[in-house]
């Protein structure tokens, strides 16, 4: 076949494919346009998952009648004049591809009136070709209706999901922008029903409530205002990190509820997500991910948004600087605020009639465990979100723009928040939990999780001073490592030695174990080692040295810690609690499960009807 230039309609379709993948992409482009146009109210309407119809109406600046057609020409934009502008870009769009791409694959109806003109203009395009143009009365702003998405690309249409799924993607887009622009009013209508509405009050709190619901939003922690460039190296750029993150007790099964905005642009970045996840290091259960909305304000010159046509990826000039700033900010607030989960008895205290209390909860019927930041104060005074507090200035970027000094909340690090009070052992329940009394009421401590935490911190403390001390065995023990784990074991010999397991390859799957970590006088070194290796094999650890070392340490602690179901005497329990008291982070085990639950005197009194 001879080489030939593709006909324009085919080229347009191919190009459109990059920008428009699914109905949600159309919504994204149109909403971004509306935001760039300065609209304060944005209504999105979809039918049949957006395939039948997508309508975005805004009250933005509109397009003058004379420029309306040009808007649908490829690479036509008002947002950019010269190449230099590209590095200063503050608008969401700039490529001039959105409208032509949408027009190439849909039937578009376009009604707009610039706020400087008295009459609006109405356009209708099919497959990018203008079929009708007339002057019409219209409110200031733009109403774009894109119908019959992919009508001319059956292949794409085939790959669309069920309408409900596509509607879900669209809702995700709209909610993301709600979080990025809390001062704008958003409304989403799906098949004639309003499914999402944001008040546009300018308060991040209201946006969070609209997106996550009151319960979740109330728990979210405000990031401290910080993280400006530290100025140690001149090339580092000014940046500000703000937003809200969930406490460690709030977690999800995937990273979807971790949202990042760079200069108001929603982006997806695995490294950033990982940085935040690392901030929750050891505080979250394995395989769970934090919740958070993090906005990064950075000099546009220090970030390249022109990476992909869909613009949900960016490149930072100094990625590590950005990641560590984010991580520091999150870590600070998370470590401060990670409290002992408190038992709350649900108000509907008649479990026999309250069927919802049983709804899929694995915990006791009407017990809910929530997190309260501090043991010493009533749960609600310390919450980051004071829902009824009037705010003078709109908080579009909390922490970044409005000064936080007027907040009646403390965000200064308070060391004692982590420390345990002195606890007196009362007894043991189910051979698994230690009941202890403290000045603030009753504490239920998971003996395994607590011991794990203690061992972990002891290991880490020793690690700080060099290799961990090891106790040599009288006779080296012969260990047969299952074939699947041999490679991993060989690779990890050095790390294991650092932890106190001196393992010597002895040919094939046979190894000689010469020493054990001195901290762990385990009676069955071989099974301990095999358990650790097996667990890590399931976990599929990375090859990164530090991570693997941390994973190994956690696994060793987990295996060596007292198990649930082991009877402990009072002296052992006291010793355990004493050690726990001296831990830096006694509240969670290294895998992020809580080590203890607190039931305050006040709660006890309430439950017994004394108050």
């Amino acid at each position, binding site marked *: 076949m001879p080489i030939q230039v593709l006909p324009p309609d085919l080229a347009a379709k191919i190009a459109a494919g990059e920008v428009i993948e699914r109905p949600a992409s159309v919504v994204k482009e149109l909403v971004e346009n509306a935001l760039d146009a300065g609209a304060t109210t944005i209504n999105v309407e979809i039918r049949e998952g957006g395939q039948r119809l997508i309508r975005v109406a805004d009250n933005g600046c509109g397009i003058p009648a004379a420029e309306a057609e040009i808007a649908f020409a490829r690479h036509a934009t008002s947002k950019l004049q010269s190449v230099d502008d590209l590095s200063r870009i503050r608008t969401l769009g700039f490529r001039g591809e959105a409208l032509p791409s949408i027009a190439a694959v849909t039937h578009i109806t376009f009604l707009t009136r610039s706020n400087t003109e008295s009459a609006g203009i109405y356009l209708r395009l099919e497959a990018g070709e203008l079929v009708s143009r007339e002057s019409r009365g219209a409110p200031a702003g733009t109403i774009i209706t894109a119908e019959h998405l992919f009508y001319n690309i059956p292949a794409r249409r085939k790959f669309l999901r069920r309408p409900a799924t596509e509607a879900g993607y669209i809702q995700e887009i709209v909610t993301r922008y709600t979080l990025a622009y809390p001062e704008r009013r958003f409304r989403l209508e799906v098949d004639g029903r309003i499914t999402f509405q944001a008040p546009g009050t300018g308060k991040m709190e209201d946006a969070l409530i609209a997106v996550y619901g009151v319960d979740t939003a109330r728990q979210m922690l405000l990031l401290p205002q910080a993280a400006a460039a530290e100025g140690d190296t001149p090339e580092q750029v000014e940046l500000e990190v703000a937003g809200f993150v969930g406490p460690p007790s709030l977690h999800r099964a995937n990273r979807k509820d971790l949202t990042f905005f760079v200069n108001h642009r929603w982006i997806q970045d695995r490294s950033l997500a990982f940085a935040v996840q690392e901030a929750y290091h050891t505080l979250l259960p394995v395989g769970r991910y934090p919740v958070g909305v993090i906005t990064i304000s950075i000099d546009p010159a220090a970030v390249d948004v022109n990476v992909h046509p869909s613009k949900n990826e960016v490149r930072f000039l100094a990625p590590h600087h950005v990641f560590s700033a984010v991580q520091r900010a999150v870590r600070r607030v998370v470590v401060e605020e990670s409290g002992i989960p408190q038992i709350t008895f649900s108000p509907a205290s008649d479990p026999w009639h309250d069927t919802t209390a049983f709804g899929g909860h694995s915990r006791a019927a009407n017990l809910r465990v929530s997190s309260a930041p501090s043991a010493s104060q009533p749960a609600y005074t310390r919450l980051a979100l004071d829902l009824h507090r009037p705010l003078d200035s709109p908080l579009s970027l909390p922490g970044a723009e409005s000064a936080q000094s007027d907040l009646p909340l403390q965000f200064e690090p308070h060391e004692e928040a982590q420390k345990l009070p002195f606890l007196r052992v009362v007894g043991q329940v189910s051979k698994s939990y230690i009941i202890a009394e403290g000045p603030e009421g009753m504490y239920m401590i998971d003996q395994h999780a607590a011991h794990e935490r203690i061992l972990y911190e002891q290991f880490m403390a020793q690690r700080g001073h060099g290799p961990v001390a090891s106790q040599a065995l*009288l006779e080296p023990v012969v260990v047969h490592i299952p074939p699947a784990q041999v490679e991993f074991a060989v690779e990890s010999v050095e790390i294991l030695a650092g932890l106190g397991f001196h393992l010597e390859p002895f040919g094939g799957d046979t190894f000689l174990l010469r020493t054990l970590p001195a901290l762990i006088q385990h009676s069955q070194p071989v099974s301990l080692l095999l358990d650790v290796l097996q667990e890590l094999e399931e976990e599929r650890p990375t090859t990164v040295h530090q991570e693997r070392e941390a994973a190994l340490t956690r696994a060793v602690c987990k295996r060596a810690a007292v198990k649930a179901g082991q009877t402990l005497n009072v002296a052992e329990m006291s010793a355990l609690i004493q050690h726990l008291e001296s831990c830096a982070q006694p509240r969670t085990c290294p895998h992020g499960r809580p080590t203890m639950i607190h039931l305050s005197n006040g709660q006890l009194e309430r439950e017994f009807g004394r108050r």
Partner: protein
Amino acid sequence: MKISCLQENLAKGLSIVGRAVAPRSTLPVLSNILLETDRGRLKLSATNLEIGINCWVGAKVLEEGAVTVPARLLSDFVASLPSDQIDMDLNPRTQTLNLRCLRYEANIKGIDAQEFPPIPTSVDGGQMYLEPDTLHEMINQVTFAAATDESRPILTGVLVNSNGNRLTFVATDGFRISVRGSDLAQVNSQGQPNREMNVIIPARALIELGRISGDQTEPISVTITESRNQVIFQLSNITLVSQLIEGTFPPYQQIIPKNSETRTVVNTQELLKGVKIASLFARDAAHIVRLQIKPGSDLTPGSMVIRATAAEVGDNVSELDAMVEGKEVEIAFNAKYLLDVLGVISAERTVLQTVNPLKPGLFNPLGSDDFIYVIMPMQVTR
């Protein structure tokens, strides 16, 4: 059953057999003590199915019979009675034992003696006879080195090996090993040669044996039952029966170092004291105690410096005079393992033989090769 005996005899007998009672057993009868008339005496028995103890107490038997009664209640009650004659009378229909001592009287409900597991008692001539003092010392010097948890059952036992002339006790927990030997008399008190023996006895049983044999003067006979699964220690008026641990004991001779680079002789008590002090600091540092051994010159004696450092607590140094032959060495041990051995060396001076910081250290009392204790060092890179 109707018998009378003296309070102090009964109280003592109860305290001896009480050591074998299983306090929280799923089998209720194991929390009881069996009282049984036996050839004009009262026989007390208790067992936890691992070890069993029989004890005979002098008594006036008026009517034969047997019953089991709760151990704790009976012991505590008898112990608080005045020192006088106790009359016991069993009501066989209700299995209730009536006890009367002066103006104190009690009825204790029991369980039928038929339910009590039998404990072998009859021994006609032992296979080996041991002097109680020697046995006592051997038990003390060896049992502490046995493992305390059940994961490797063999290591919770003590290897008892005899070739007829020499008896050896060995115990190890995988980190240290304790070996104590003793020569046997050519012919024992019964005029019979001692027989060969190679069994593993639970350390717990030997510890109990050590406790109850404290005031014994007669040689103690040792018998392995024909089925080779039990050992019977026959003392005067007491028998202790224990299950044996089946299996093969680790080949311990290979572990004991044959030669050394440094031989250090120190005062046992001084070393014990130094290690005790160091252990206070070692508590928070994985129990690591460092011994720094320096040979002396013509004019100055050699020295041993004992050192413990805990990063967050502090550190401590003590120095002892020592006779050092060989080269300088620094070696680290677990404080607990050191304290264990130093507490059971009665000789005034102790010898420590070392090769290098990675090779085991060998302790034994100066002037005797009967007792050998080997500890694996700890490895710490600084």
